[in-house]
């Protein structure tokens, strides 16, 4: 498998399916995004890493232009629930993006783990999966990734 570590440069293996990785509009953290890019590239995806503090309009435009097989939203600043709810509603408003797989993960609230209700809200609003911070979250994210290429090709 060819692998690139050209973080932030947007180059990658052309044949592979594209995943967009993004931070939320108010979230400045980037190590989570660098890690996710490397992980996804190792698993054979091309990655467009939009970085941190991505305005929603820019993210929507990139999704419409590039049609990724998966959008990975990562949030660690405590605004993930709030930003995530707003972002997913705006994405799902666009008919072209209504079926695009979108997942969110990280530290989603200001006071540690999220309530079940809030996680349910995020799914209800249109996320396909939520990965709360911690070992179980990342393990199930990997399981999703392993299942993705088939899903992408189909």
């Amino acid at each position, binding site marked *: 498998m060819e692998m690139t570590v050209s973080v*932030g440069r947007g180059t990658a293996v052309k044949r592979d399916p594209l995943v967009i990785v993004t931070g939320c509009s*108010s979230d400045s*953290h*980037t*190590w989570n995004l*660098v*890690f996710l890019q*490397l992980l996804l590239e190792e698993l054979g995806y091309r990655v467009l890493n939009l970085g941190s503090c991505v305005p929603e309009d820019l993210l929507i435009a990139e999704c419409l232009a590039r049609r990724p097989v998966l959008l990975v939203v990562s949030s660690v600043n405590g605004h993930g629930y*709030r930003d995530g709810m707003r972002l997913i509603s705006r994405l799902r408003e666009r008919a072209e993006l209504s079926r695009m797989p979108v997942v969110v993960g990280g530290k989603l609230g*200001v006071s540690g783990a999220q309530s079940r209700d809030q996680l349910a809200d995020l799914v209800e609003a249109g996320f396909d999966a939520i990965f709360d911070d911690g070992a179980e979250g990342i393990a199930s994210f990997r399981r999703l990734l392993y299942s993705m290429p088939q899903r992408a090709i189909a």
Partner: protein
Amino acid sequence: MRGAGFGEFVRRARDAGELVVQPRMGMSDPRRMRAGLLATRAAAATTVGTITLDSYTRVGDWESAELALLEDGSLNGYPIVSHDIATTRRMLAGVQGDGFPIQVRHGSATPSHIVCALMAAGLDASEGGPVSYCLPYGRVPLSESIHNWAQSCELLARLRSVGRDPHLETFGGCMLGQLCPPSQLVAISVLEAMFFHQHGLRSISVSYAQQTNPAQDFEAVYALRRLCGELLADVDWHVVIYAYMGVYPASPEGAQRLLGEAALLAATTGSERLIVKTVAESVRIPTIEENVSALEYAAVTAAQFLPDPDIDALVKADSQIYAEAASLVGAVLNMGTDIGQALQLAFRRGYLDIPYCLHPDNTGRARSYLDTAGRLCWADTGKLPLVDAVVARGARTVTSSELLESLSYVRRKFDSQPIVGSPAEVALEPRGA
């Protein structure tokens, strides 16, 4: 006494042989923010206060900040632009003053609204910088950030005409929190201080964040002091050390030992101020009580150490970090007398290049790694003007697990308990201004 600002307070503490300690703290509710400041002031330590702003305010999304206030107020900081000035003045009444200056911390590349709001509220100290509050934190073009920061510096500097002494701290010594080799942290911190000076500030602090190897940190702080001595004439400057900004130990003992090392670094190198971290750092935003404990622990620890008796010689000494930092600073200053324009050109040409920084204006060729002693080294210097100063390891691919290993090196070293579960959880750590 009017006119005795943030810098003056720190200078008096230094003359009294005391390290100033400071938390990172911001709450959306003015009553809780006030309580936090009062608790900081009352801590058994020489303290200054912090108002950390929320991240909606940082990116200029006032609408979301106001909406959150109307709903449940669960913001990750104090929305100084959205609260009206009277509210902030009431929050501060009787709290800030000569004996307790307060710094506003934000992380914005578009800071003019924030600077206006803090000045209107009677405050005069902040931090950041055109590079350090832009490249690590979002997508605002570097050229815009430089323009915005020049404007904000000049705005803040106007307070000097009414007898105040506004203070700005560079955040350049903390780029990305981790994995930026110390020489480049030192160089950017000094360059941002020169930028502040060029735009009217005379009271400035330069930051350096504790990294992964204590000996390297000592060398870096001495190099920083030497460069400031050489380049910041006509400036009242001091050094502020940040306790480790990367993935923090999860155990209370490990977290405390790491903070203790930061206090030792600050005290021994003659640094004047220390920004602490708490035992809760690895899991969530700390409580007021946790912050007070961290302040007091850092103060007690620092008080056990005197500045190195050979400090003058150590600052003057030639070192690898000084050679690299001087080379980086020199290359930037050679590109023009306007520091802002020189910084912009330097990033465009790769003369400054932050490893792993995702910002579109960062060249992104430089790479770093940790050697077996935990020293932060160059794997690839890209186009950095370090050819004669550095033997880089040579570029090679970095895997996601290698990256995590480097990011969590300090946690592993300081946690007495072995880490259980997947290392992936450590990728998702809080960091921020």
